[in-house]
């Protein structure tokens, strides 16, 4: 574990200095500020517009940061051949994957939390609405994004960086449509189609089971029991994805 943390720290230092990351974050903050302009034509619905569009920006930019950084995470080490240097030390593939993942997870945490705090402050200062639910929703968004990051790391162990990132985005979209796949399992006529739909339903992460955004804008409230269960499911999914990535990585020949 100590070795994984050393790799994580190194990955964190490396990714946090990435200029592309800074550009994306600045762009995301600009988008949040742009929601101020949208709010002016909303007929006194400033706080709602800012929170809703702001959280959508946090989700989408958090996703972009996560998938593109995760797609490169392992690939870069392989292309630069630094992986050989790492494996010359007593470090296993699983420790390497977990270390890289934790380092990037910390970077993405700072990025997403930074955007969430910025949104919270802007909403507070401009619309006078200091709702802590914005920060809570940001944390739930972070968990979703980290799950997609783990899946992208898995893809990056056998696919190119770009392909892994694109697949990561596809899994995010599929995860939003999880319930539609479930409908297919009920509507499918052939047993084979039903079985296939079940496999897809189980394989893709269910990202839409709980959503904090509507509660932030006054549409119902968060059911804590359901949310805790969902978080547990997502953490388990993340562990499975990382273990699968380690397994594929172990089978690679260096």
């Amino acid at each position: 574990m100590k070795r994984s943390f050393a790799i994580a720290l190194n990955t964190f230092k490396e990714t946090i200095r990435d200029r592309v990351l800074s550009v994306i974050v600045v762009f995301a903050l600009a988008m949040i500020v742009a929601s101020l302009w949208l709010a002016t034509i909303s007929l006194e619905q400033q706080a709602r517009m800012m929170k809703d569009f702001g959280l959508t920006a946090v989700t989408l930019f958090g996703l972009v940061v996560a998938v593109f950084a995760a797609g490169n995470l392992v690939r870069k080490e392989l292309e630069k051949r630094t992986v050989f240097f790492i494996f010359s030390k007593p470090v296993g593939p699983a420790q390497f994957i977990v270390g890289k993942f934790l380092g990037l997870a910390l970077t993405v945490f700072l990025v997403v939390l930074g955007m969430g705090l910025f949104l919270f402050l802007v909403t507070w200062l401009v619309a006078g609405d200091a709702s802590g639910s914005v920060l809570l929703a940001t944390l739930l968004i972070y968990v979703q994004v980290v799950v997609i990051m783990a899946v992208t790391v898995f893809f990056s162990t056998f696919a190119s960086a770009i392909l892994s990132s694109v697949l990561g985005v596809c899994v995010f979209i599929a995860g939003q449509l999880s319930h539609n796949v479930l409908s297919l399992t009920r509507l499918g006529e052939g047993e084979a189609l039903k079985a296939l739909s079940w496999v897809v339903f189980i394989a893709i992460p269910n990202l839409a089971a709980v959503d904090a955004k509507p509660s932030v804008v006054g549409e119902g409230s968060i059911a804590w029991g359901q949310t805790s269960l969902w978080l547990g499911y997502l953490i388990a999914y993340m562990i499975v994805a990382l273990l699968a990535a380690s397994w594929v990585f172990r089978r690679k020949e260096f």
Partner: protein
Amino acid sequence: MLRRVLLVLTFVVCALGVVGYQATRPEKGSSSPRVFVPSAQFFTDFSPSFRTTIADAYWLRTVQYYGEHVNGDRQFDSLWPMLDLITRLSPRFVRPYRFGAFALLDGGRADLGYELLKRGHAANPDEWALLTHLGMFSYQYGSSPDKDVIAAEWYQKASELPDAPEWVGRVAARLLVKGGERQKATMQWAQVYGVGDQYSRVQALAEIDKLLPVDPAARQREVASLAEFVPGELFDEFSRALLGGD
């Protein structure tokens, strides 16, 4: 030098082409004033996590759409589909019900405005403003012979909500009088007296005085029956003012 001039020239021509193309689009745009509005079910199925964001985006489009047409052709063909979509995706978003009902009125569709408000009330039963709008729509645009009483009932419901202002109860009482519901009107005025400020009390006493029978015995009986609407500490003063004596 010639190469540089050619490059600059190419840039200027292309830039003018780009700007010119876009600048002439509004004139060549579709003459149909309709806005593309998919069904709410589509968004609920395909982007459940972003349904409120989509509702907000359509809300901004609705405000723009209304602004574009209210001082122009006053054709609001897309208004109802947009409001329907917004309120189905985000049922607790109150503003679209209130704004939408009056915007639909501008388009000559008081019936749809009323339906929208009813849907808003069903999703937000604690919003007194929606109930007063329902009362106003019933009174102003209702076709039923009992429209005054129906309107009064909406106002009565609104007056029972904790944050409703005092005038709501007074409007309900006046509408009951207008609808010929003497007994209900008396009770409503008594309620106004019980919870209202000094102004409301003066108004209530004057109105109840007009509604009560002239016969002293009948009058006394009726005042006594209003005890349940006026708190005990106020009831003595209330009955003295209506029946006279000490």
